[in-house]
């Protein structure tokens, strides 16, 4: 099979999977089998893509050309491949987890959930492999729309209110800010095709660069830069597997992915460094890191605390990418993977606790570690990754970011990193401490969650550790990104 | 400029505007149709005034080869326009009659009140 076909398959497999899932809605076992099979074959396709030597040198595939000079095109580059790999791997694990979660919690509308999951994944693949801004925008919007039914899955008042907020913020920022930015880019350069080293240089003045950068930064609402972060905690009304997908894999990673991609492939590192526009983004991200961590400290609801942690962690990636040294970009890319594995473990843990013990608050978790040792063990490993301690992957990414900051002589960033590490520790350690060392307060007898859920969350925890030991794949891909000297 | 030469137009414009005034200021639907009629009839007068030549006769061939005829084209246009006018009046009236049957009134503000009260 040619590489082109593989790229197209990466989008078509989940899209067709959605159709098959919808068609098999009458037979639950078949439906869930289809889900797993689709996820597995997607992973296989992406893995096959990784082994293609010619992948990054091919000209883009043009799907359609609605207007002259404005095509829908697909192409692959290292960052997109990494993103696609993470998403497809975690989709497979999430599917196992979801099936078990949905069945144990007696949720309704299973088919709709699986169909929307598959469509969301198809959109994610589209984002990962889009060859220009217009295609990116299209898949970005379809990801927003396909995750809306997931967020409002419960259909009660809270869910719909949260869903409206989610949709409202994401659509209005994307149409109101991102689309104008894209049009501006097209107007200035006559193209929207991603190009290593950027397309804007020479077409736009310094003041314009800064305004455009801000339009992109806030237009990509999924990257949850403050103050466009509120949709993330609001979307916590979703069932936990959905939150895992939203906050660890598809949606937020799509946001930071777009951010990195715009920085490197639209603006270009050289141009941003020349005019110093990246410092604004660094400052915004640094502020978000600290502010979100402070808010997270005060949250008692476990999922909300995790959500604010996500906001903060996403800004690590944005900040690291915006520093624009080879090492910091490497850190940013690596953190996309590290955070994905860590955060999905945390959400799986929260879901397992809810399924087994029906608890949602941190303060209620006293002694739960003894009842659910596997779950909480994995949870603890993920917390280590979030804080940035070995032997978890988060440590490596922080290390790279720190080095990058030193290389750029950006001492405030180093300070922010140290402070946020302290804050991370102070909101994650209490959870683990409560779970293992506080006295058991509940009367409710329960053990571990159903085994597929436990297997899934242990798998992701293991992946976090594995990534620490064998970080070659993401680093290898990161090394191929177009940054000065990298 | 000979201002007096335009008096015909100006009076016609006055007639047009009085018809137009009835259309936009009155709430009775039949009265509005009357206004429309005056408005359009005055426009016909405007057209025919344009076609008139001093000393001309009706554009029907006479034996006198030096006879000056008024311009026949506006006449033709207005014949068509008169037909359009009566057609519009008839359709408007049909609507008014049906409105009376369904609402019991043909005053615009009363109809609006009835619609709003639903």
């Amino acid at each position, binding site marked *: 099979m040619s590489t082109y076909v593989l790229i197209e398959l990466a989008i078509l497999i989940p899209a067709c999977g959605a159709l098959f899932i919808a068609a098999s809605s009458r037979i639950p076992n078949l439906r869930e089998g289809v889900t797993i099979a689709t996820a597995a074959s997607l992973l296989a396709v992406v893995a096959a893509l990784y082994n293609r030597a010619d992948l990054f040198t091919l000209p883009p595939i043009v799907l359609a050309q609605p207007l002259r000079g404005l095509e829908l095109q697909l192409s692959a580059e290292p960052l997109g491949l990494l993103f696609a790999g993470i998403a497809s791997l975690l989709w497979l694990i999430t599917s196992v987890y979801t099936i078990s979660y949905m069945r144990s919690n007696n949720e309704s509308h299973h088919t709709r959930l699986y169909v929307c999951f598959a469509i969301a994944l198809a959109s994610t693949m589209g984002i990962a492999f889009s060859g220009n801004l217009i295609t990116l925008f299209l898949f970005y919007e379809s990801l927003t729309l396909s995750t809306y039914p997931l967020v409002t899955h419960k259909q009660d008042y809270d869910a719909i209110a949260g869903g409206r907020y989610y949709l409202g913020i994401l659509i209005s920022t994307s149409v109101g800010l991102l689309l104008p930015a894209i049009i501006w880019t097209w107007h200035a350069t006559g193209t929207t095709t991603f190009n290593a080293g950027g397309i804007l240089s020479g077409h736009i003045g310094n003041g314009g660069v800064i305004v455009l950068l801000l339009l992109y930064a806030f237009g990509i609402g999924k990257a949850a830069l403050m103050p466009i972060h509120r949709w993330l905690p609001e979307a916590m009304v979703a069932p936990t597997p959905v939150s895992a997908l939203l906050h660890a894999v598809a949606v937020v990673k799509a946001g930071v992915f777009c951010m990195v991609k715009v920085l490197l492939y639209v603006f270009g590192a050289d141009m941003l460094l020349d005019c110093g526009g990246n410092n604004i983004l660094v400052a915004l991200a640094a502020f978000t890191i600290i502010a979100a961590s402070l808010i997270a400290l005060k949250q008692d609801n476990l999922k909300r605390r995790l959500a604010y942690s996500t906001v903060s962690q996403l800004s690590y990636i944005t900040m690291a990418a915006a520093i624009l040294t080879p090492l910091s970009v490497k850190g940013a890319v690596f953190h996309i993977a590290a955070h994905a594995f860590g955060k999905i473990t945390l959400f799986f843990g929260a879901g397992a606790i809810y399924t087994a013990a029906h608890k949602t608050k941190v303060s209620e978790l006293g002694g739960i570690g003894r009842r659910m040792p596997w779950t909480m063990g994995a949870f603890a490993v993920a917390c280590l990754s979030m804080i940035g301690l070995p032997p978890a992957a988060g440590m490596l990414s922080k290390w790279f970011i720190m080095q990058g900051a030193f290389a750029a002589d950006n001492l405030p960033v180093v300070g922010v990193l140290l402070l946020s590490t302290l804050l991370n520790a102070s909101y994650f350690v209490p959870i683990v401490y409560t779970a293992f060392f506080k006295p058991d307060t509940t009367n409710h007898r329960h053990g571990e969650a159903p085994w597929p859920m436990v297997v899934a969350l242990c798998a992701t925890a293991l992946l976090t550790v594995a990534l620490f030991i064998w970080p070659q794949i993401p680093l290898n891909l990161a090394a191929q990104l177009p940054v000065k000297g990298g | 400029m000979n201002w007096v030469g335009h008096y015909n137009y100006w009076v016609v414009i006055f007639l047009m505007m009085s018809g137009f005034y009835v259309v936009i200021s009155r709430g009775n639907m*039949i009265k509005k149709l009357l206004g429309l009629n005056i408005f359009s009839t005055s426009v016909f007068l405007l057209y025919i005034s344009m076609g008139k030549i001093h000393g001309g006769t009706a554009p029907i061939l006479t034996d006198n080869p030096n006879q000056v005829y008024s311009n026949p084209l506006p006449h033709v246009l207005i014949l068509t326009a008169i037909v359009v006018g009566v057609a519009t009046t008839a359709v408007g009236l049909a609507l008014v009659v049906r409105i009376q049957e369904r609402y019991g009134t043909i005053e615009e503000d009363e109809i609006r009140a009835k619609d709003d009260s639903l």
Partner: protein
Amino acid sequence: MEVFIDIALLTLLCITAMAVVHIRKLFCAIMLLGIFSLLSASMFVNMDAVDVAFTEAAVGTGISTILLLLGMSLTNTREKRPHYQPLFSLVVVSITGAVLVYGTMDLPAYGDPNASIHHHVAQRYIKQSPLEVGPPNMVTSVLASYRGYDTLGETAVILTAGMALVALLGMRRRKVLPMSSSSGCGDYHDMKDHLVLRIMAKIFIPLILLFALYVQFHGDYGPGGGFQAGVIFASGIILYALIFGLEAAMKVVGYPVLRVLAACGLLLYGGVGVACMALGGNFLDYNALAHDPLHGQHLGIFLIELGVGVTVFAIMVIMFYAFASRRGHTA
């Protein structure tokens, strides 16, 4: 002399228009509108537009007034006092009027023979039409031949109005017409009992119909043509219906017949056009109808005028029937 008549008529027109604006009694307003039409018809005569005057008299004074009276008798006879201030309307009207007056500043003076309007296209109609088309009445030539396509549109407009009325009001026969009249148009059943009316009608109706036929076929030479003839013919039937009752009139010419006539009139008109195409000319190019172009024009104009006449007659009567048969209908 012309100027004095002109000024006198214009003054009367202004007075009538103002009266229509002011009078709230709809019956009076409608009658005044009839007078307005009649006065403007006189104006048209004064301005050499005899065909237009003829039509305005037949339509504006005749058919329009009858329709308006019928409509009024089915609704309300008095206009209510409006609640809002007419200031806004006055401002709009003044601005529109001012713009129009401004627009006349660059117009040539009234009746100026040197105005460009009389020189470009009109010259051909005046000079050539008797030679190219034939009829001494240039209006007929322009109407039926040069701009015959407009007239086709006009015939279609009439058909549309008739069908719109039937679609909106329905056309049903009623055995007994309820006696619920209190207004201008009078009650049909009462009128039948007036001996004088009956006799006069019996004398006049054949004359009216005969006159209609004259207007139809003499349109080439004098004022008149299919449209005026159709209206006059229809007014004969309407008069019959007014005096002898709707039922009686419908027995003479029923709605189905009229419907078929209306459609056939338009089809005849269009058919002539299509026949011209079939014979190798353009649409409505009557030259193709016969070997001699003038003869072809003559035949073509005769046929299309007939088509117009038939359609107009049928639709005018249909309009009358549609309103008249609605009397006493309640929602």
